[in-house]
């Protein structure tokens, strides 16, 4: 029981669903959560890079989801341009702005907008790319030709200038979700292309051919036979796109070319640079440095996550590890068998 591989778990689980009437809806949801969220998280946890990455991203989520209700809104009440903690007071641990607002509070209240932009941008990219890439790869022929020509054009248009032009022309107010999508407006193209080439090999496999012979609809074949195989790759690109959105949203807000309704890290950098001259004099540099550091930290977390995900999902790296480091084989198998144990425990 303890040494079954993942695919065995899936099939066994599927059989149990049909066999056992006692499995309630809640249990089933719990299994799903365990299978798709907890188990991968446990596997990720074995890699030190992923561990650091998860901690950083967890911190960022905490900051943006719960932080604003813990820290007061930035009010211009403190001393002007107070230095951060070791040089200043603990009342303003990250120092203050030229108006006397707490920089920590600005950072915390800017975080939710960052999260919204990142999520919408990365989701938009991944969904559009998956739909277009898998359809083109699977259908082939004219559909493929047309879709790939569109992707090639979208890929060639330089993204940032296009984003700037659209932001200047379109009547979008500072809605962070829309800004996130706008920033990813042509980012799907590259991913769509690489997904297509992966589908090319999948479409010829026996189980896909079986589905085709049984006259199963296109969306079902794509959704059930094809896309699950691509999920690790898609997940990795989700993380990479998230990094892209955070880099470029901050950059464009810093340059002051995107509209905004409430503060975020790029806007912070913009005011530090424009209003306090944070680059020319070191007195205000901390105001600029804090959001910059936050961006780098979140990006580092995302990079580490993407890197380790690559290692874990990449069968080549896995196989190599299994060959060279036999000692690590044990714990890894144990991690994988975790879902089985919990399934057994419930039933």
């Amino acid at each position, binding site marked *: 029981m303890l040494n079954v591989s993942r695919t065995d778990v899936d099939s066994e689980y599927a059989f149990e669903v049909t066999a056992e009437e006692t499995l309630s809806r809640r249990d089933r949801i719990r299994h799903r959560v365990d299978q798709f969220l907890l188990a991968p998280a446990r596997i990720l946890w074995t890699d030190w*890079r992923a561990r650091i990455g998860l901690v950083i991203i967890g911190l960022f989520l905490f900051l943006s989801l719960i932080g604003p209700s813990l820290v007061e809104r930035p009010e211009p009440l403190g001393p002007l341009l107070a230095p951060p903690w070791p040089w200043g007071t603990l009342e303003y641990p990250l120092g203050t702005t030229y108006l006397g607002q707490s920089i920590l509070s600005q950072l915390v209240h800017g975080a939710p907008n960052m999260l919204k932009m990142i999520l919408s941008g990365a989701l938009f990219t991944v969904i559009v790319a998956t739909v277009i890439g898998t359809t083109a790869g699977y259908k082939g022929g004219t559909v493929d030709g047309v879709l790939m020509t569109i992707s090639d*054009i979208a890929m060639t248009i330089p993204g940032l200038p296009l984003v700037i032009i659209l932001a200047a022309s379109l009547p979008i107010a500072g809605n962070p979700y829309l800004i996130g999508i706008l920033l990813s407006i042509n980012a799907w193209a590259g991913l769509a292309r690489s997904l297509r080439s992966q589908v090319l090999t999948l479409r010829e496999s026996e189980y896909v051919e079986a589905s085709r012979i049984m006259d199963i609809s296109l969306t079902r074949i794509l959704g059930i036979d094809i896309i699950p195989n691509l999920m690790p790759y898609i997940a990795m690109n989700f993380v990479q796109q998230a990094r892209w959105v955070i880099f*470029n949203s901050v950059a464009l807000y810093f340059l002051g070319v995107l509209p905004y309704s409430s503060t975020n890290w790029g806007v912070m950098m913009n005011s530090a640079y424009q209003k306090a001259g944070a680059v020319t004099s070191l007195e205000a540099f901390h105001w600029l440095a804090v959001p910059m550091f936050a961006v780098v930290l979140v990006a580092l977390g*995302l990079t580490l996550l993407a890197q380790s995900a690559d290692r874990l999902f990449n069968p080549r790296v896995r196989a190599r590890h299994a060959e060279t480091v036999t000692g690590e084989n044990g714990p890894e198998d144990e991690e994988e068998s975790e879902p089985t144990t919990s399934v057994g425990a419930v039933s």
Partner: protein
Amino acid sequence: MNYVLKRTGRAVFTVWAVITLTFGLIRLLPGGPMQALRGYLMQQNPSITTSELQARIEALTAISPDEPIWVQYGNYLWGLLHGDLGQSVWLNKPVSTVLAERAPWTLFIMTTGLFLMFVIGIGLGAFMAYREGSNFDVATTGIGILLQSVPFYVVGLVLIAFVGYQWELLPTGGHYASSVTPGLNLPFVFSSIKHATLPVGSLVLTGFGGWALNMRGNSIRILGEDYLRVARLRGLSEGRIALRYVGRNALLPMYTLLLISIGYMFGGSVILEEIFAYPGLGRKLIQSIGRRDFPVMMGAFLLITIAVVIGVFIADLTYGLIDPRASGGAERESY
């Protein structure tokens, strides 16, 4: 031959698509550039008559708003083919003149940056792969991951603050010192390089890590291939194996990556040039948005895109020379 024709067709098609997109953006968007321009002109001169207004808009944007849309579109295309990008609202000069001064500088820093990143990254990556598992490899991999997470503008700002303002070692903006005369003379060349050091440096510092990691991964994958073992058994020299067997095969995917990054790099010029006050196309684009100077904005966008299309086109054609498999492209069965 067929391959070359196909690629040429695609490049032309892409340029046409972008032109159409810009035309659509100028003309069709409600509250878009065209109406903003109309509002701006009426505000400048409240007593302007309708026909005068139309004539002025036509002169500025190379689009005449009265005529049917396909005639406008045709005229716009025809004008572009003759290098007529319209007239700058702010500078009162033809857009093509304004941009022609800027384009070489963008090309200069972007190609230098991309070239240095590529060369340093590939050299380092190959070396890391040969020393796989050593302390050197682990340390550089760590640094590479760290550098990948730092946006180039962050490094740029730190460089400006310290190297530029605190230590006053290098200039913080501009493309050459006002004391030198442009032309092929030593002070001018030296001054241009000095002014380009910080922008190019911030690009290379943050960029080479990613290239190195990629090259390392490719090389390690190829080092495990069977044909390499065969080459060793045949008694080929290490140098020949490193260059012809590992280097060449590991470089192929990097070349595709180079193709994709041309677009990213030129897109990034918008941020880079603005931060370093470097007078290139990207900075002009941002400036023209602030001034609501739409003809210049659209012109700069078109020009950046065309630069990318040409870059990708050249890379595409030469890729066919390096990898003969690329020109094949078998037709597949359609389901």
